[in-house]
């Protein structure tokens, strides 16, 4: 009995150490963003700001258009999420419920494309967007991401778990496909769609390389790009960089704490099938 207890204490100890390692950067980021410059660079490191420097945030907003970055990020992440969800939803419906020639071929092509790393096509996509004259536009920022094979595949497995007789029943009841999608499929899959939406929004919020390529005007930058630009410009003003990083991370962190169950469940389900 005693041996077991030692094991449990040991387990808590290790978990606590790693939990601190995991959480410390976030705490340091949030607290550091409220410290003075001297406090952030002191040895030994300051753990708690003597008096929170809320003015750091005022300085950040004064030095770079973070409100604009915020807005840009919110717009692109939301638009990407809504439209890509809509498109993958329609595609997944067709793949699950309809019978048509060429379905097998479509499925094989989509599954193979799932394996193509985004980094391998991002530069040529930049080229396409540039040729379309869409650099530094919202359209250019979102266009390649308005559908997602990955989420379509996820939704296919979700819809596939709904009994096919539900679709048959709705056909006999006289519902059109459109009515089936909006009155039955979507309400029945709310959980899955919500999770996919969250994951899509988060990855949209955190996107970096693509907006880095297709925007170079300050007014079109997204948060992460604004943040890196700010980090080079603000030079050694550590506390301002940490405040800016907090601005970027905090909204998602809040979203995560509210919907942690849906997000974690979604990721687990997503990837074990992949």
């Amino acid at each position, binding site marked *: 009995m005693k041996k077991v207890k030692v094991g449990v204490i040991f387990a808590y100890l290790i978990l606590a150490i790693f939990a601190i390692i995991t959480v410390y950067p976030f705490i340091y*980021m949030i607290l550091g963003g409220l410290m003075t410059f001297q406090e952030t660079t002191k040895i030994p490191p300051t753990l708690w700001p003597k008096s929170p420097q809320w003015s750091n945030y005022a300085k950040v907003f004064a030095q770079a258009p973070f409100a604009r970055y915020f807005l840009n990020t919110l717009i692109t992440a939301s638009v990407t999420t809504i439209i890509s969800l809509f498109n*993958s939803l329609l595609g997944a419906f*067709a793949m699950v419920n309809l019978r*048509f020639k060429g379905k097998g071929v479509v499925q094989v092509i989509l599954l193979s494309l799932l394996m193509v790393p985004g980094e391998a096509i991002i*530069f040529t996509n930049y080229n*396409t967007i540039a040729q379309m004259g869409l650099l530094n536009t919202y359209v250019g920022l979102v266009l390649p991401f308005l559908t997602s094979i990955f989420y379509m595949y996820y939704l296919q497995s979700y819809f596939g778990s709904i009994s096919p007789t539900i679709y048959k029943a709705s056909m006999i009841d006289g519902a059109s496909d459109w009515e089936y999608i909006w009155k039955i499929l979507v309400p029945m899959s709310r959980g899955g769609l919500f999770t996919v939406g969250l994951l899509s929004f988060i990855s949209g919020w955190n996107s*970096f390389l693509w907006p880095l390529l297709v925007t170079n005007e300050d007014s079109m930058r997204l948060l992460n790009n604004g943040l890196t630009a700010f980090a080079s410009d603000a030079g050694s003003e550590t506390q301002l960089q940490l405040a800016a990083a907090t601005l*970027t991370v905090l909204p998602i962190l809040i979203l995560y704490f509210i919907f*942690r169950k849906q997000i974690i469940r979604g990721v687990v389900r997503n*990837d074990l099938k992949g």
Partner: protein
Amino acid sequence: MKQNQTKAWLFLLPTLILVTLFSIYPILRAFLMSLQSGSLISLQWTGFSNYQYIFHDPEFWLSIKNTILYALISVPIALAISIMLAWLIFSKVKHQSFFETTFFMPYVTSTIAIGIVFRYIFNGDYGMLNFILRIFHLPAPNWIDDPSMSLATIIIFGIWTSLAFNIVILMGALRNIDPNYYTIADMYGASGTQKFWRITMPQLVPTLAFLLTMNIIAAFKIYTSVYALFNGQAGVGNSASTAVFYIYNKFQIVGTPGVAMAATVVLFLIILFVTFLQRKMMKKIGGQ
């Protein structure tokens, strides 16, 4: 119901158009561009000279070497730590969801923002990491500014970021193991260690194979974390250049898209090969 419901294409149309334009076309385009030289507006066919160029470019080999080293070191360490943590959470403690939620945080947060934070944790003078190392009288190197430490720095950061996904997936797999296996093992008096090695690990093999592949592929695509840690550079004097860094550099900065695409094709083939290996491995496991 008709045999061939052509309306299906209507529902698939938006996806198919976007996929053709932004997934299929760019792959083909990348292959073609890798055989061309010149700037984006004036490309000429040059056969395989881009490939010859990259294979003779020490910078390219450094990037590939860094990428491979990064993958080979960070992936196994991260996996091992993840298994340990997932198993401890699963088998030893209450508050499972508390730890799960905590460990998953890095997955949802911006690599760029956290990378900037780590830049200061790694700071040679006033960083928290060196402060702790000095307490234990360990060497406290200059993580950011010393070129010889660049790779170690991105490996540590890479491990920190990849634990989240691994742990959550492993927890899912652990929960899927039929608890009756453990009940029976208890009846025969198996110890905790025996249960771990004889029941848990074999059951985890498919998940581990999956995670290994996902991690290796992710490692080969490493870019953002380097960018964030070294403030847009690939470490001092490009010491921590990676494959994607090389591609970005050749494409956007140097303005030789053909060279960039040749490197892209090489990277693409490596990743495809890893995926292919995974498929084979999974089939072998599934066939047992």
